[in-house]
């Protein structure tokens, strides 16, 4: 009853089971052996088989590196601080000019700190929940992503449609030892296919793997 052996004929049942258990990753830090044994099964030729990707790599849901929570929390905390400062400033000005709010520095500080705390707690909660919701699966013919706190989005990117793949690292990510993978398609939402919070090694493994899959699918199914 895991998402791992997903077949196209009974996806609906699968979906219901995943709805019950939000995240069932195989393990936190899976060992990714270099694929290339080239052993294929008798099943109809899938892109993955043609690209020589190991079966144990396929269809196993991966979660992000746990440090990504820290990245998101840091980012949202900075945002919360700015927001709090703005609110404090407005309160100070409004207090001086009108009598809607009591004047004085202490009111402004209280308002600012209050807003900051609320926003920061929200940021932390959201980061934790988002981390929990994130999952990506390298499937036979497509890359599958699942994420979202309020709006849950599941995206399927067929390998034939992959144009190119980037890995990027922002300064904060470098500090935390993280990396982001961006998969581009010709579709307008191409840049939306982003996997954050990967360890650099994981990102580059995934990048080469997806590149090989894209090339293989191109050869097999190019128009």
């Amino acid at each position, binding site marked *: 009853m895991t998402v791992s052996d997903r077949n*196209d004929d009974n*996806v*609906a049942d*699968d*979906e*219901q089971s995943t*709805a019950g258990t939000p995240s069932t990753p195989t393990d936190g830090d899976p060992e990714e052996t270099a694929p290339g044994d080239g052993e294929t099964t008798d099943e109809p030729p899938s892109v993955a088989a043609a690209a020589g990707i190991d079966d144990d790599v396929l269809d196993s849901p991966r979660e992000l590196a746990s440090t990504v929570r820290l990245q998101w929390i840091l980012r949202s905390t900075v945002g919360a601080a700015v927001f709090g400062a703005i609110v404090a400033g407005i309160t100070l000005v409004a207090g001086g000019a009108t009598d809607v709010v009591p004047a004085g520095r202490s009111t402004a500080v209280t308002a600012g700190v209050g807003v900051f705390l609320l926003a920061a707690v929200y940021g932390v909660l959201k980061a934790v929940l988002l981390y929990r919701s994130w999952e990506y699966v390298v499937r036979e*013919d*497509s890359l599958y992503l699942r994420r*979202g706190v*309020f*709006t*849950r*989005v*599941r*995206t*399927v*990117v*067929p390998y*034939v*449609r992959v144009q190119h793949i980037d890995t990027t690292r922002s300064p904060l990510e470098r500090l935390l030892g993280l990396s982001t993978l961006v998969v581009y*398609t*010709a*579709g*307008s*939402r*191409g840049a939306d*296919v982003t996997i954050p919070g990967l360890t650099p090694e994981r990102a580059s493994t995934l990048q080469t793997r997806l590149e090989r899959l894209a090339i293989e699918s191109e050869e097999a*199914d*190019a*128009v």
Partner: protein
Amino acid sequence: MTDGGDQAEAERLIDRAFRLHPLSIPYRVLEQGLGLAFVLLVVGAPAFGVVQGTLGSTPTAALGVVIVLGVVGYGVAYYRRFEYELTADTFDIRSGVFARRDREIPLRRIQNVDISQNVVQRALGIAEVRLETAGGSTSEAHLKFVSVARANRLQREISRLSRASDEQSAEPETFETLFEISDRELGLLAVVSTDLRIIPALFLGASVFAPSAAAMFDAEMLLYGYQSVVGAIVGPLVTLAGIVLIGLLYGALNATLYYGFTLRGAADELRYERGLLQKYSGTIPLSKIQSLTVEENVLARWLGYASLEIETAGQSGSGAGSQGSTQSAIPIATRGRVLELTNSIEAVGDVTFERPPKRARQRYVVRYAAVVLVLTGLLWGVDAVVGLPFAPWLALGALVLVPPAAHLKWRNRGYAVGENHVLTRNGFWVRQTKIVPYYRVQTVASSATVFQRRRRLGTVTIDTAGARSLVGNDAEAVDVDEGTAARLREAVTASLYTALRRRREEDRRDRRRPNDEHAPGG
């Protein structure tokens, strides 16, 4: 060497470098000159005075002459240094006065070839040609200007050559007229193309602002009570008449754009012409079509009419405005005819739309009721500050409209899974039916907001490389059942691979056939 005009018809077009039409020099100079003159009139007059004050009038006049010479010189230089050449498989442009640019566009990559002419250009017999590819944010090639005959020949040759490089013989194509707009349809277009969605918005605006405006003149209204009653009746009537007038004006403008619309089709290309004052013509290669959209607004639907739009992956405007490369294949025609033509472009066949589950309606009821409540709250706030001539809670009467509105929204939604296509349908005011061939699907996503999850609903978004999707106009199956959403998502992806595989096999068969034919001959 130059674009001479009529005798050009007999000339060889391929593998020869051409220049633009000589008349493009005076046209461009005047075009730029007018822009410059405008700047000079606004900023220039005082500056001119200052310059004259410091230099004296003779040098100033000399300066003016220098500027004019500069503009003319640049125009001539632009003409002399602009060359285009059509080769067997590329379109090359060498251009630039100071910075040179050599550009080669593979013919196979060209999405559409558009020709446009405004009134002045028509009088001069010159036309503007644009070539669009799926890449850049602007047209890849922009010829300003060539003779009309040359423009048409270019358009013809480019599509012939790009077809030839596809394989197949390069025999001239036979075009048959698929659609020609009649006067009746043009008239209908003028009436129907009024965007009905603006009416409720304007009414809302009027109902919010008119009373508060009236409140400002409260004292006056007390004094001239009689007049205010007349005003209360005449005012809305005038507003309504204004709305209708604006609508008709907009419609009439639209009608001039689509005047004389003709769509002709060959085996692998569509070609259209339109326009009364400004003339457009363009090509749509069938192999570049990303998706089709059948659009009907309330009025058109009620009268049994519809329009058809075709999206290709080209990026820039084709003259019709900021709609990307959405080409209107049929501006307006009876629904049956539109569907017939749609079927001839993409063999969709018979499909039955699946509506969202009925519980989706509850969502819309809640949503619309919330909107009414929020508006009532706002009116209450306004009432508290300025005072309204009516009790704010009267706005709650709009709640009566909520159930029918929700029902209509639900009724017009749906999706259908065909053999080779996936279709989605949305919208009451403007109902859009999107037809996406499986082999054009880029990515598929399903999403569920908090509110959708409460009712076990979800939305499936099917992304294509069409230009229109830049503004979020993807094919969307909204508020389908959770399970259906997941199934649809996976089914569309699987169908993409099946469709690609089938196309590849067909391709291979096609490629083998000419060889077989060649074998006995050689």
